[in-house]
């Protein structure tokens, strides 16, 4: 019944609109013009609206920054993340002025040079000087961005040197949960393969491998020590996942059949971050950021960053693989 009424209503609206259009066309023809002709006045009205839009667009931008700026990710909790944030700021300081200036020109010219019966447009087809100018300026700006960007990138992607003090953690993704495995005292992760997956051994660890015996497997949450480099290795059991740790500016895909890696140095403990964000319940998280199935939207693990002593105490409480 509702559907029927809705259909009738829509048809009536369409019929009315058709009649209005017909009347408008007739009125235009009576005044000796065609309805599709655009007068200087009509053009000016649209040009004026473009100026209104320009102001509104900038206003909307400013309003969003004011309203939502505080909801963005807090300061980076990792060492390389500070560099990324700095690079982000440099880039924003470049693109926001370009955004504003080009828009002002675009809309101001549209407004200023709106159609008039008396004016002639300027026949101005090219200028090598101008074109050189706006080829070279962006080239220089981009060279700077590329150089700064790549120096950051190369630093971030260099794995932790094996002789340096660090913690080795494997993060393992499966539909739809995460598991973390610490390398244990020997600093080596035991061999793993899908063939060994059975029952509780979801990670497919080779029980005969000596290196595996002291590995420690945790679910739900995992801990990191502040100030110590963490070398991550990522694996997946089934489909692609992506280990995304936004507060640390860290992300890497988990690929079945391939080990991927990422490393960072945590710099701010969870407790400190609670104070910085003024949020009692703040937790660092690891979430999945590559479409992986129906429950992709709920695949998470908490991360706790704490002092080295607290971390070591926590790790000591975790069971070794051989004990399970």
């Amino acid at each position: 019944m509702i559907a029927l009424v809705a259909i009738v209503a829509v048809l009536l609206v369409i019929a009315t609109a058709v009649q209005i259009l017909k009347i408008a066309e007739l009125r235009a023809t009576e005044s000796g013009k065609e309805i599709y002709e655009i007068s200087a006045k009509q053009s000016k009205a649209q040009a004026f609206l473009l100026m209104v839009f320009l102001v509104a667009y900038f206003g909307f931008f400013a309003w969003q920054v004011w309203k939502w700026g505080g909801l963005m990710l807090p300061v980076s909790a990792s060492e390389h993340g500070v560099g990324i944030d700095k690079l982000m700021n440099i880039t924003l300081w470049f693109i926001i002025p370009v955004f504003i200036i080009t828009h002002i020109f675009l809309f101001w010219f549209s407004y200023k040079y709106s159609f008039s019966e008396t004016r002639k447009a300027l026949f101005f087809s090219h200028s090598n000087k101008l074109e050189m100018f706006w080829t070279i300026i962006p080239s220089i700006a981009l060279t700077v961005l590329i150089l700064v960007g790549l120096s950051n990138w190369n630093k971030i992607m260099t794995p932790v040197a094996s002789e340096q003090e660090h913690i080795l953690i494997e993060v393992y993704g499966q539909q739809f949960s995460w598991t973390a495995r610490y390398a244990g005292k020997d600093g080596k992760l035991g061999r793993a393969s899908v063939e060994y997956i059975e029952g509780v051994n979801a990670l497919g660890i080779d029980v005969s491998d000596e290196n595996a015996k002291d590995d420690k497997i945790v679910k739900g949450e995992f801990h990191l020590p502040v100030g110590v480099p963490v070398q991550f290795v990522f694996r997946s059991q089934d489909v692609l996942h992506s280990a995304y740790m936004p507060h640390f500016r860290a992300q890497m895909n988990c690929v079945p059949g391939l080990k991927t890696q990422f490393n960072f140095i945590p710099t701010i403990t969870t407790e400190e971050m609670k104070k910085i964000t003024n949020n009692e319940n703040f937790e660092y998280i690891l979430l999945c950021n590559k479409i992986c199935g129906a429950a992709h939207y709920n695949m998470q693990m908490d991360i706790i960053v704490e002092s080295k002593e607290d971390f070591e105490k926590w790790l000591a409480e975790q069971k070794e693989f051989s004990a399970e």
Partner: protein
Amino acid sequence: MSAHQHPHEEQDFLFKYVFSQDHKMISKQFLITGFIMGFIGLSMSTLFRLQLGFPGESFWIIDFLLGSWAENGVMLPDKYLALVTMHGTIMVFFLLTAGLSGTFSNLLIPLQIGARDMASGFLNMLSYWFFFVSSVIMLISLGVEGGAASAGWTIYPPLSALPQSIPGSGLGMTLWLVSMAIFIASSLLGSLNYIVTILNLRTKGMTMTRLPLTIWSFLITAIVGVISFPVLLAAALLLVFDRSFGTSFYLSDIYIGGQVLEHSGGSPILFEHLFWFLGHPEVYIVLLPALGITSEIVSTMSRKPIFGYRAMITSMLAIGFLSAIVWGHHMFVTGMNPFLGAVFTFTTLLIAIPSAVKVFNYITTLWKGNIKFSPAMLFSIGLVSTFISGGLTGLILGDSALDINVHDTYFVVGHFHIVMGLSGIFGMIAGVYHWFPKLFGRMLNNKLGNLHFWITIVSSYGIFFPMHFLGLAGVPRRYYTNSEFPLFDNLLDINTLITWFAILAFAGQLIFFFNFVYSALRGPKAPQNPWKANSLEWTTGVKHIHGNWPGEIPAVYRWPYDYSKVNENGDYVTGEDFIPQIVPLGEGELDGGGH
């Protein structure tokens, strides 16, 4: 006599409107099919915006439209992914590739270069019918068991390869692959035809540097398509092999559904490379025609030559070339070798240079013009705005170090919807407003057109601009709901606002569809050259005839941008502010922007 004529007439109808080999009819077929697909894609996005703006709330419209894909008026999580996947596929390929290129390449190439038709009318017809069949198969896949493909429009394996991983990877995915294979055939038939026609069938005097920028953009688009689409076909075929014949191109070391799969030695990263080898050029397959169309409109409506004609061509060539060597910027955090990441950052950021040149040239074309704001012109200005707004955030995503933290977040969704989605659709709609008289012999209503523009630009920025903020807050894309994370709790307002704008955008398009249908059937009759433009298509009659020009094809004597050209006394050379290409050069008059 009448018995003899009857079957003949029937055949006429069939070959005139259905199996037509006339480029103008094929153009309309592409346009209407593209718009129907586009409307479906748009409706899907409005539905899943309801879920994102009001997570878990019950809507009768969702129950009514989605049937078994929803429960109690709430869509199911995996069907949310099916909607997202189909929305992306339909919008990128069916609306913005076939709908855009198919419509305007077909309409404008023969008309603007001065040809009777495409080089091969038969291949052209096949191109449309392949497209039609692929559209039908794609729509059928919505109704099969398990639902439509749900692995995202990028269909990364293993998710797309294994029905155990998501229901949509069963028959739905098979149909997706079949549909896309046919689509690619359609696209290649079209592209080859466009290239051959442009290179071989130009009328007398129509040198390459007298071509309108539309034709240049279609030519470069077609070349990019011919180079990159076959690679997607290869990727799709290998995926079919992995899915159905037990090969291991993309699969290795997988344990799913309680068992170890036998696949060994493949890599999903191979698929990603093959996919993005098309996927990134695809962005420019969408963008370049839109840029070509708006260049033509901006120049005509400003009554000024397009500024830097040769620079515009050069930048399109540069964009076309660079588009083929930047695909890796989609893969910075996939586990691809970081050295490659550095290379792709370099090539990617280079694209900003020709793009910037184009923007500055657009703006300079407006300077000291005499601009008439038709709806087409408004949408063209809108395109320049979206091209800037979306292009600039590309400098963030193209920078591998910055991409780490915004990769696959809503920042990306905001970026590509503005720079590719909006620019593509604004260019296409601008083209429809501008060339509607050529398509249907009637005029669209300007007032409704203006209203359509204002609703569209306000609501589209309302939808996509806030998404950058969601992304900077760390919200991943393709999440059914954000309510599982306390971190995202206070972002719900943003999502609700976006959804309201999405509903507004949808309503705005209804105005356009009404205007379109009404004007095509009942709109005022168009004059021959409503915009007082120079290019050749406006020398043809309003009523379509086979072969386009009744007599000889006119010869061309000048470039198409002689607007407001004056002599030493400051008077218009011909007494009017435009000089069509068919007017011979005056004594001592220079061609191509010479004064």
